[in-house]
């Protein structure tokens, strides 16, 4: 995790977002029916938007991300960590995979923020933590409204 400069930090974030795009592309290749594919395509488009956003910040040399961390609903922490995307994946399976993925990114940036010695760099990672928390919250809200309605 060589992220000791501003550019390296954003490169890392860019790499994470591109990996997320690849993650949904991989799931989509596995999908067996239209509903799965349209949902995965929507989520992949969101990640592509994040790639574009971070690329733009890198080009400008500044991070334009809100430092406000989203309220944690606590769902991700309690979910079964094992991801089992299969050809028959349900909406629940897709959302769980998305939530866990955002959670992992958030944890990584948290560690990098803790390890960063330069205040500027620390701030970049803290804002990335906040950004990932908002992504996770988006999927958690979807999970609450669409999946866990009766619980």
């Amino acid at each position, binding site marked *: 995790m060589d992220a000791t400069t501003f550019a390296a930090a954003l490169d890392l974030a860019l790499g994470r977002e591109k990996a997320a795009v690849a993650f949904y592309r991989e799931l989509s290749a596995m999908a067996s029916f*239209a*509903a799965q594919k*349209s949902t995965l395509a*929507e989520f992949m488009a969101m990640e592509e938007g994040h790639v574009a956003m971070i690329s733009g910040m890198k080009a400008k040399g500044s991070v334009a991300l809100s430092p406000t961390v989203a*309220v944690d609903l606590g769902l991700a922490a309690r979910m079964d960590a094992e991801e089992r995307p299969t050809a*028959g994946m349900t909406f629940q399976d897709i959302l769980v995979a998305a939530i866990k993925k955002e959670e992992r990114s958030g944890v990584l940036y948290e560690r990098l923020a803790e390890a960063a010695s330069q205040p500027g760099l620390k701030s970049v990672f803290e804002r990335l933590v906040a950004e990932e928390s908002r992504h996770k919250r988006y999927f958690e809200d979807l999970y609450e409204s*669409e999946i866990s309605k*009766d*619980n």
Partner: protein
Amino acid sequence: MDIKDFIAPFAVWKRAFEKPFTVKKPIDERPGAPRYRGFHMNDADACVGCGTCEAICMNNAIDLVPAAGREAKDGDSGLRPRIDYGRCCWCALCVDICPSGSLSMSNEYVWIDRDPDVFRYVPGVEAKPWDGSALGYRRAEGYRLLDEDRVPMPELGHAEAVASFLELVRGYSRAQAEKEADRCVSCGLCIASCPAHMDIPGYIKAVRDGDMDEGLRLLYETNPFPEACGRVCTHRCEEACSIGSGGDPVAIRWLKRYIADQVELSDYAKALPRGAAPSGKKVAIVGAGPGGLSAAYYLSMQGHAVTVFEAEEAAGGMLRYGIPEYRLPYPALDKDIGYIESLGVSISRGVSIGKDIELSKLRTDFDAVYLSTGLPVAYGLEVPGEDHPRVLDGVAVLARATRGEELGLGGRVAVIGGGNVAMDAARTALRHGATVDILYRRREEDMPADADEVREAKAEGARLVEKAIPLEVRDAPDAAGEAALFIWNEATMVQKEPGKRPVPEPIPGAVREGRYDSIIAAIGQGPDLSFIAESDGVPVKRFRPVVDSFGMATRAAGGAPVFAGGDLVNDRKDAISAIADGHRAAIGIDRLLYGKGA
């Protein structure tokens, strides 16, 4: 003659140059008596705009008018009474009848203005000096022109109920039904809140009049499942009932059931309208639940040949496989379905779309297709150990009970969830002799299940464990897969964000566990859309077909147009909404088939 007779005419002269009393003291303070019936006051927040005051006013002095800042919503028309004092006779019948008790009268009676048109205003909305007056006329405590108490429904006792699957609710007698129907003021607030917009005041009037054929005809105008909905409807109408603003709402659901129960299936044809002549058009419907069969009924009435494809061995969808027979006996459901089939609707049972026949084939063979497949996929607990053999799916348990299969739940059962499926599973387990705990992540008041269902489940012996966050399922010691430990974290409700619902937050260290023979997961269900291929052209967003206002998903080339509705599409997830969707789609399909455009 007396001397006074000469003097008296001169005595008036001493008054001749005085101003008349009324000119000298035109508005002398003469307050009305404490209970004098003066100008009206209205608590506009308590008022629901039902118009009962308008209906009872003999002088037509009251009109319901739009009130600034008040929008119509369920249980509130958004209108408020305007009083015309050119007509009002101050009788106070409006105050006496007001269901919500919002209307009253001040003891103020003086209002002077040169413009005769101003003596007309909306109390509680247009401010007046007498607003908030403590004096004046109020309906006396305990005095009601309307009966605020519902006629009690005869039901089995709880001990008797859990000993069998006999129907819990016995139904009204004629005298009880007519008495209950008498409580309705025909305000119609219920119509707006009913997803199918049933003519509720109309069929309640039919009960009052003893005209069951007319009642049945009105029911079938918008709902071909009166027996089922008369028993298990979510009855949003009763939440909107204006009588409920000051007492028990009218038992609308039970009155619907009463009508359907009174007419034998063999007499339905005499009461109900005949279908149109055959149109020569064919429509395929996927799913024989309430939504699919509702569409089938209305399409059949338009003369279209309808074939319904049902994956299960019997029709009815969740009404049959998701609702236990103590709430909805199969003969009642069969009566609704039987009438629809009697019109010529063909139901192909045991045929699964995507396995036995492709959607593309239906699009080729039929002129239109309606998808109403509901939510058959049970969502998992999503905690470690959820694949334990003693973790069961709530919908599957209910379906097996319907099929008469041995459930093998064991003596101790945990039901996880707070919706109607959870309550039905819990009450089914009780009837199989189990001790039942219902574990729910939030509080009882947050439970999405009908309050009646929750209350009855508890009364029948289920123990409700609130604020229990599922953590894990483990094999019980020495049980070898025959029993499981359910582990949960006690929670406290935390208002983390203003304006949003509180979030259950685990209490550190408050981890609990229970040993159960079965753990029934009932946290929610989703659709099975595996039968829709990309080539079918049906737009889907987040596992939901995207439809227009008539339920049309696609009219893409390469096949018949596809419509969709019911739980598959709407957010309400109840039978009456699916029925309404089916009716709406039938109208859309009919318009399309006749070239009127959907």
